[in-house]
């Protein structure tokens, strides 16, 4: 059987890269006595796949990992067993059993499902956006006018060349506080009434909170067909600031100044075009 595990990654674990997270979970499953399925051959390994690998430096409320198991217990027991062997910075939110693939169809990987993700981008304390942007109000105004442009073209590097891309259509939502974000979010969701399953089960966000209060909620295309990183949106914002105010007055994008936190990872419903959490689909 297959199951999709949803977990949070936070605190100092943001410094652990994707491959090491994979090794971490392999060992965690063994400690939790999970009945993992192994590949055949002389160096058998657990069959597992991640939905959308998280970059180093980012934290998350919604990482998804698919595993193949030979047997399993009640989902709540599985969550408890696994949480009991994890260290600070990893927390299992849900164990979501998946249905077998339909007759005559291929197995869908979690990775191929991913279409979009929500992010919270916060300014870390001890940094400032720029000399003219000191408060969340300043930031809100500046970002709003940046986004009001017809198009937002950035140079995007691929393996072969650098090409110009308009990223504006890839940003499907932005907001400046949680209430606004929750409101706007509803319109994009396939199941707006039960975000992340039953409301009672929804865990507290593990995103770091900063005193300066400068932050931005984003929903952007993520995955194999179209992929945008929150850092690129911020970089484009800084470039625009520099162009309008004068390059020598405004600081360029500082990647250490902003903490990027993933709030949710979605798949897109082909019929309605609406988004569903990866643990809201049956397979």
């Amino acid at each position, binding site marked *: 059987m297959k199951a999709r595990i949803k977990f949070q990654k936070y605190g*100092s674990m943001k410094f652990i890269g994707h491959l*090491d997270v994979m090794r971490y979970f392999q060992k965690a499953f*063994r400690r939790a006595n999970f009945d993992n399925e192994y590949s055949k051959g002389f*160096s058998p390994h657990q069959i597992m796949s991640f939905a959308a690998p998280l970059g180093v430096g980012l934290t998350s409320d919604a990482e998804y990992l698919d595993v193949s198991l030979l047997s399993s217990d009640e989902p709540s027991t599985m969550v408890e067993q696994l949480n009991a062997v994890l260290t*600070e*910075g990893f927390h299992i939110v849900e164990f979501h059993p998946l249905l077998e693939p339909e007759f005559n169809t291929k197995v869908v990987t979690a990775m191929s499902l991913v279409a979009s993700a929500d992010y919270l981008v916060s300014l870390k304390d001890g940094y400032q956006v720029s000399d003219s942007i000191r408060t969340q109000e300043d930031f809100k105004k500046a970002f709003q006018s940046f986004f009001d442009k017809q198009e937002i073209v950035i140079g995007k590097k691929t393996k072969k060349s650098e090409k110009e891309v308009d990223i504006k259509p890839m940003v499907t939502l932005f907001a400046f506080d949680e209430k606004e974000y929750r409101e706007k979010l509803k319109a994009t969701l396939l199941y707006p009434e039960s975000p992340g399953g039953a409301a009672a089960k929804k865990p507290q966000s593990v995103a770091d909170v900063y005193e300066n209060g400068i932050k931005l909620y984003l929903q952007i295309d993520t995955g194999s067909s179209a992929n945008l990183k929150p850092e690129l949106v911020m970089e484009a914002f800084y470039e625009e600031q520099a162009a309008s105010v004068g390059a020598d007055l405004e600081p360029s994008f500082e990647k250490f100044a902003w903490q990027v936190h993933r709030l949710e990872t979605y798949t897109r419903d082909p019929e309605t075009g609406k988004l569903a959490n990866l643990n809201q689909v049956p397979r």
Partner: protein
Amino acid sequence: MRKLALSDEILLTVEKPARYIGGEVNMQVKDPAKMDIRFCMCFPDVYEIGMSHLGIQILYDIINRREDTYCERVYSPWVDLDKLMRERNIPLFALESQDPVREFDFLGITLQYEMCYTNILQVLELSQIPIYAKDRTEADPIVIGGGPCSYNPEPIADFFDFFYIGEGETAYDQLLDTYKECKKAGKSRKEYLEMVAQVEGMYVPAFYDVVYKEDGTIESYTPNNPHAPEKVMKQVEMNLSEAFYPTRPIVPFIKAIQDRVVLEIQRGCIRGCRFCQAGMIYRPTRERELEYLKKCAYEMLQSTGHEEISLSSLSSSDYSKLQELVYFLIDEFGSKGVNISLPSLRIDAFALDVMSKVQDIRKSSLTFAPEAGTQRLRDVINKGLTEEMILGGAMKAFQSGWNQVKLYFMLGLPTETDEDIEGIAILSDRIAREYYTIPKEERNGKVSVNPSTSFFVPKPFTPFQWCKMETGEGFIRKAHFLREKMNGQLNRKSIKYRWHEAKLTELEGVLARGDRKVSKVIYDAYKAGCLYDSWSEFFYYDRWVKAFEENGLSIEFYNCRERSEDEVFPWDFIDTGVTKEFLLREYKRAKGERVTPNCRQACVNCGVKHFGGGVCYEKDIEEPKEADTDEGKN
């Protein structure tokens, strides 16, 4: 949530930030505010190497069993972070609490190889602890050294408050209890060290004076403090079966060198190879109980989630219940995807059976360590491996499907001639020839024979401690000579020969048998930028040579000199149990090309019997005979 000592900016700039954040599986968590004693354990090399070391894990667990003490860890920051810490004046911190090391009561540094000595100074300096012990105040941690290199601590004696000579299981409780009492009674650092000096196995360098002769050798070595003994007896844990074993080792986030459970099955070695320091200082050989090991294996795999278990010992094949243990591990864990690795295994029918079960034959290679190319020289070093055994073992393996062979040799062994060196090429070729005697349709493609040579370094407390060592140029000449001979072999295309760095070996020789005068050289080399010397990309030979010259010392004095029988060695104040008389006897037998039986065949009266256990008291071992001890007869 845990606070980190380094900022996001630094951690996201340096390579592998996981080296510095702690928080790993099985890390000990305690409240520092509630502790009487804070101990920081250090392995002076990069995290991935240090984390792989079993000894530290054992000590970490032993010390943390105490409720009044928090033992934490620190490793050498990599060069990228080293630079940032100096620029920004960030003090080195322990991984667990992320608190500065200088606030601790103790800093314990393990000394596993000589080439990490500059890293010790790095750890001290970055911790903002005075490098020289004499400059430390009551506010600084007590700096302790331990591990194999503490069997000649003299080259680094000036940097340590005291050394713990021997096995760590025995005396830490006493040292920490004493410390607690001293702290309560308001006693000084010096008063504490005076009490330490009275504990067996402890060596406080400041309490000893060395007087040198005109030729640079030692005239005398005398205690200058009434509490310091003349001889320091090594600590040895005689009851390994009940000795504590860390069943919850720490599991790093990043891949360490040993990404597996390590199970120490025995300590010491019965073989008595004359070049091997471990084979002498860990005497007597002591085995752990089979049932105890089974239990440890189970618990460690469960607590770590590792997918591999490795048996650790100097010579696994000599563990008396090896077959039972290995088959247990295969039966119990093999089906659960646990890989079993068995280093230092003699190639015989059992080994081949086990290897075929746990490894992919097509990908794995056989390893032999003949160490020398001719039987004559193997007799000199007392390596009981014959050509017949090697060829026989290789042939059996070839017939079972193997086609890769690794061979380890040393160049520069005492009495070595060109013929011995050429013997390495001939033996390599013979193994390949053996392979091609198998009919073409029955063999598995081409054979690949991979001989490699390291350069011999005479070590303290071995029968070769009196020996002259080869020079750097001499080593290179020998390696080139051997390469030429390899190229002259029939099967040269199947042989791939590699050799080690010669200049590094030269330096290792000095640090291994050096005296206190070398301390200043290490200090100057470090100040000139030497760090991570064992990493070839950071090894600056010229800076070391300059440091020797500026201090009026010569590498030749330490390496290229046959020492006389009555010379006082810098390490003579240590008593390992193995007597100097025995070592000298062995040296003479080596020169006479005479082999000495191993501990299970006959007792040759090396001196460790008084420890009261281990292989010395197994049944059916012959008592020392006159023939074995008398110089005149064979």
